[in-house]
C-alpha cells in the first residue's frame, strides 16, 4: 500500500472514529428510559415559578399484546399519568429542578401545548416563552394557552373525555370551539413573537377554565374566553360577547346568524361572507379617526314584520352595527388594542405612530372610530317577495 493510500486510510479511520462523537452518540435513550409528557405548564406562586408536567406512566399503558406495559394487573393500581413539579426563581430554574426530580429523561419534543396559569400570566409570559425558545428540545410550533386559576388544577383533572391525553383534548377543544368561545386561535410560540412585534397590538390567547363537569359529559375543562395581554402580562379577559366582531375586524370571518327586528317583528339573517377595511384618517400629520367599513353578505332566514328587502337589509346592518360598536367601545374603554388599530396606523404613517404610539392606550380611548356597515341580502329564501 502506497504512502498516499495509507494516509487516506488513516484520515478515513480518524473520521470514522470521530463520527459517533460528532453524531451525538451520548444522546441515546431507550424508550423505557423516557418520560413522555401529556401536558405541561407554569404557575406562579409566592414569588416562584412552578413548572408542572403531567407524564404518561408507560408501565401502566396498555400494549397491543394485552396487559399493561410493565406487568399484567398493574394497570388497575398504577395511574396512567403522574405529575412532576419543579420550582425556581425563573422558569428555566423550575424546569431544571423538575428534570432533576426525575430518574428518567423527559422527552419534551411531543409537547404540543404549554399552559400558563393565571398568576404566571399576570406576572408575565415573556420569561416563560424565552426559556422555551432557548431550550433546543421545544418546538417553535408549541401552542400557548392561558388557564384560569392554576395549571396544576387543570392537569389534576386527568379526565379528558374520549381522548387519552390532556394536551390532545386541549388542542382539539381549541381547534373546534375557538371561533365560538374565543377570539384567539392558540398561537404557536413563533406567532406570539410575531404578534408581539406588531405596533401597539394586544395579544389574545385562548383561555381555559375548569367546568366542573365530569366524564362522560365531556372533559372537565373548556375554552371560556380570551386572555388579553399587554406587554407580555395578562391584563384582561375578552368576554364571549365581543368575540365575533373581533374576529371579523381582524380578518378571520366566521359564519354566523344575527337576530333582527323591524316592522314590529323579529327575524334573523345568516351572514355567509364579511370583510373589514380599517383605515386611519390622518390629516396634517395628526391621527384624526379610524375609518372602519364592514362589508357583509347575508341570506334571509326569517323575515320580520316586513317583506321589503331594503328594510330588511337596513335592519340586518343595524344589528351588525350594534355589535361592532359594542366591541369598539370595549376596546376604547379598556385601552387594549385587540383589533390591531395601532398596526394599521403604523403601516399608514410611521411618523404619526411615533407620536401617538407613546401613549397608545390613552390615544385609543379618545380616538373617534367611524364605523360603516354595508350589508347586502343576497338571497331571500322562501319569502316569495
Amino acid at each position, binding site marked *: 500500500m502506497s504512502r498516499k493510500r495509507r494516509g487516506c486510510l488513516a484520515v478515513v479511520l480518524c473520521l470514522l472514529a470521530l463520527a459517533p462523537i460528532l453524531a*451525538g*452518540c451520548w444522546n*441515546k*435513550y*431507550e*424508550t423505557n428510559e423516557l418520560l413522555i409528557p401529556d401536558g405541561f405548564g407554569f404557575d406562579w406562586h409566592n414569588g416562584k415559578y412552578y413548572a408542572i408536567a403531567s407524564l404518561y406512566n*408507560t408501565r401502566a399503558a396498555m*400494549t*397491543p399484546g394485552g396487559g399493561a406495559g410493565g406487568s399484567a394487573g398493574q394497570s388497575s393500581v398504577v395511574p396512567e399519568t403522574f405529575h412532576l413539579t419543579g420550582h425556581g426563581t425563573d422558569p428555566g430554574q423550575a424546569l431544571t429542578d423538575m428534570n432533576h426530580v426525575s430518574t428518567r429523561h423527559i422527552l419534551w419534543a411531543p409537547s404540543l401545548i404549554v399552559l400558563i396559569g393565571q398568576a404566571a400570566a399576570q406576572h408575565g409570559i415573556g420569561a416563560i416563552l424565552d426559556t422555551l425558545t432557548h431550550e433546543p428540545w421545544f418546538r417553535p410550533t408549541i401552542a400557548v394557552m392561558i388557564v384560569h386559576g392554576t395549571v396544576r388544577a387543570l392537569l389534576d383533572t386527568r379526565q379528558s373525555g374520549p381522548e387519552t391525553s390532556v394536551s390532545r383534548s386541549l388542542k382539539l377543544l381549541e381547534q373546534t370551539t375557538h371561533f365560538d368561545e374565543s377570539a384567539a386561535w392558540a398561537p404557536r410560540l413563533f406567532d406570539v413573537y410575531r404578534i408581539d412585534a406588531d405596533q401597539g397590538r394586544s395579544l389574545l390567547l385562548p383561555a381555559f377554565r375548569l367546568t366542573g363537569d365530569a366524564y362522560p359529559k365531556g372533559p372537565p375543562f373548556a375554552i371560556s374566553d380570551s386572555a388579553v395581554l399587554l406587554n407580555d402580562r395578562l391584563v384582561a379577559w375578552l368576554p364571549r360577547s365581543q368575540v365575533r366582531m373581533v374576529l371579523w375586524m381582524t380578518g378571520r370571518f366566521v359564519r354566523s346568524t344575527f337576530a333582527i327586528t323591524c316592522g314590529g317583528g323579529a327575524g334573523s339573517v345568516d351572514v355567509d361572507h364579511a370583510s373589514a377595511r380599517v383605515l386611519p384618517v390622518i390629516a396634517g400629520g395628526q391621527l384624526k379617526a379610524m375609518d372602519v367599513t364592514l362589508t357583509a353578505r347575508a341570506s334571509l332566514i326569517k323575515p320580520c314584520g316586513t317583506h321589503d328587502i331594503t328594510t330588511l337589509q337596513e335592519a340586518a346592518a343595524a344589528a351588525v352595527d350594534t355589535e361592532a360598536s359594542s366591541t369598539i367601545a370595549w376596546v376604547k374603554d379598556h385601552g387594549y388594542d385587540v383589533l390591531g388599530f395601532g398596526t394599521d396606523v403604523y403601516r399608514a404613517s410611521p411618523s404619526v405612530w411615533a407620536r401617538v404610539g407613546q401613549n397608545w392606550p390613552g390615544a385609543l380611548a379618545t380616538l373617534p372610530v367611524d364605523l360603516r356597515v354595508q350589508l347586502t341580502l343576497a338571497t331571500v329564501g322562501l319569502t316569495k317577495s
Partner: protein
Amino acid sequence: MAREVPVAQRMHSIAASLADAHDSVERLLYALQLDARLTGDIDVTQQALSDLFGNAADIMITTLFSRDGVQVLTIFNQSMVHRDLLIRAVFDRIADTALGPQPDLDELTRHIVPTGITESVDRFGELATHVIEGSAILCLPGCTRALAIQLAQAPQRSISQAPSEPVVMGPRDGFIEDASTNLTLVRRRIRSPRLWVDVFRLGDITRTTVYLLHLHGVTDDELVDEARRRISSIRIDGVLESNYVAELIRDAPGSPFPTIQRTERPDKVAAGLLEGQFAVIVDGSPFALVAPITFGHLFKASEDYYESWFPSSILRGIRVMAVVLGVLVPSLYVAVVTYHQELIPTSLLIVLAASRENVPLPTIVELLLILVLFEIIREAGVRTPSGIGSAVTIGGTLVVGQAAVRAGIVSSPIIIVTSAVVIQFLAAPDYELVQVSRFMLYPILIASSAMGLFGLLFASLALVLHLTSLRSFGVPYLAPLAPARARDWKDLVLRAPWWAMNTRPQMEGGIDPVRQPPNQVPLPPAKQP
C-alpha cells in the same frame, strides 16, 4: 556448537523424504501412463487400462471375438452407457462380422458407424476420458488406435420447474444438471444459427464441460473474447457447479454483490442473449451464468415480461421498495427509537415505551439477537430433511415469537420488525440478492445504533459508493442510473410496453442496438374514405 540431531529423528526424516519421493514418482508414472500411446498389443492394453482405472468396479474391460475369431478388446463404463444399444449395435455386430486376418479400425468403423458417433483415439488418457463420459472403446490387435463409440446414457432427472425462480405466468421448464439438455432448452428458444457456442473443459481432474453462449452479431465481440479469455485461464482441479466458474471470472471478486447473474430459467438466459449478454452453462449445475449485469437486473423477474406492463411495473417498484426497506427498516427502527424519538407520533411512542418496560436488553441487542436467531432457524430449515422441517418452523416460531416476548427478553415491536424484514426479502426475485441484502443490513444496523440517523446515512452512502464502484465485464453496476442513460430507463423500475422496447440496453446491448422497428403501437384500423 551445533546441537546433534538424534539418530531416530534423522531416520524418521529420511523415511518421510523417501515416502514423498515415492509419491512423486508414482504421480509421474501415472501421468506418463496417461500420455502413453496404444501399442496394439491387446494384453498389454488390457493390463494398462486395469492399472489406469485401479480395477474400478464400474469400468468393464472385456474381450469379444468376431465371427472369424479376431479378438476385440472392449472397455466401457457400465453405469454410463446405453446397454441395449451396446449389445445390439456393438456386441452383436462384432459377433456377426468377419474382420479378416488383418483387422482394420476403418473396417470396424464401417460396421459400427450407423450406431452412433465415433472417434479415433491413440492415447490412454484420451481413451480413459471417453470411457468416463460413456463411450465404448474397441481395440483391435495390431492397431495403435482405438475406436470410441459414443453410447452415453448418463442418469439425469427430468426437466422440471425452476424451484428458485417460480412463476405464475410463463414457461415452467428449468435447467437440469445436464449441460447438453440445458443447451437444448436455450436452442429451442433461439432457433438461429447466430447462437454460437464455445466449449471448454474445465477442471484438471473433473474435465467438466462448459458452454459459452452468445448471439453473434448482437453480443459485443470484445465482450465474448474477454469471457473466453477469463474462462480459458481457469486452472482448477475440479468444477462441480457453475459458481466455481462465476467466482473465477467475475469482476470485483471481493464484493458481496453478484456481478454475474445465476439463473435456473432458460427463458431468462435467452432473454439475456437477446439483449447482448453472454451465458455460461456448466455441466453438473442447473444454474447458468449470465453477464454482464447491472444492479437493476437483480430486481427483474421473468414474469415481468409475461404480464401486462402496467402491473409488472408496479410490482417491480414494490420489489425494489421491499428490498430497500428490508435493508433499512431495522436500522431505521433502532435509530429512531433510540435517538430520534421526537419523530415518532406520541401515541405510538407510548406503545413502544410500554412494550419495552421490563425488557433488560438494549434495542440493538434485542434486534441482533432475534435476527441472528432467525438466521439460524432459516439455515436449519434449509438443511433439515423435509419430514421434520415443519417441526423446526414451529419450534422457531414458538421460541422466537412467543416465548421470547412472554419471557420479557425482547419486545413485541422487534418481532414485527424482524418479520417485516424477512417478508420483504422474500419479495426479491434473485436469490443471491436476497442473500447479500440479508447480511448488508448488519453494518448499517451497527452504524445506526452508534450514530442514529447519521449512522444510517453514512452507512447507506458507503453502500451506494461501493455499488457505484462495481463493474460487470466493464458495465457500470448502477447503470443506467449512474451513468445516467435515460433511454434505458424504459426497463429499469418501470417496464415499458413491448411496442416501446425498440432498443437494447445501451450499456450491455452489444453492437446491434436496434431490437425491433418502431411504430408498432397497436392502433384501430384506419377509417375507409
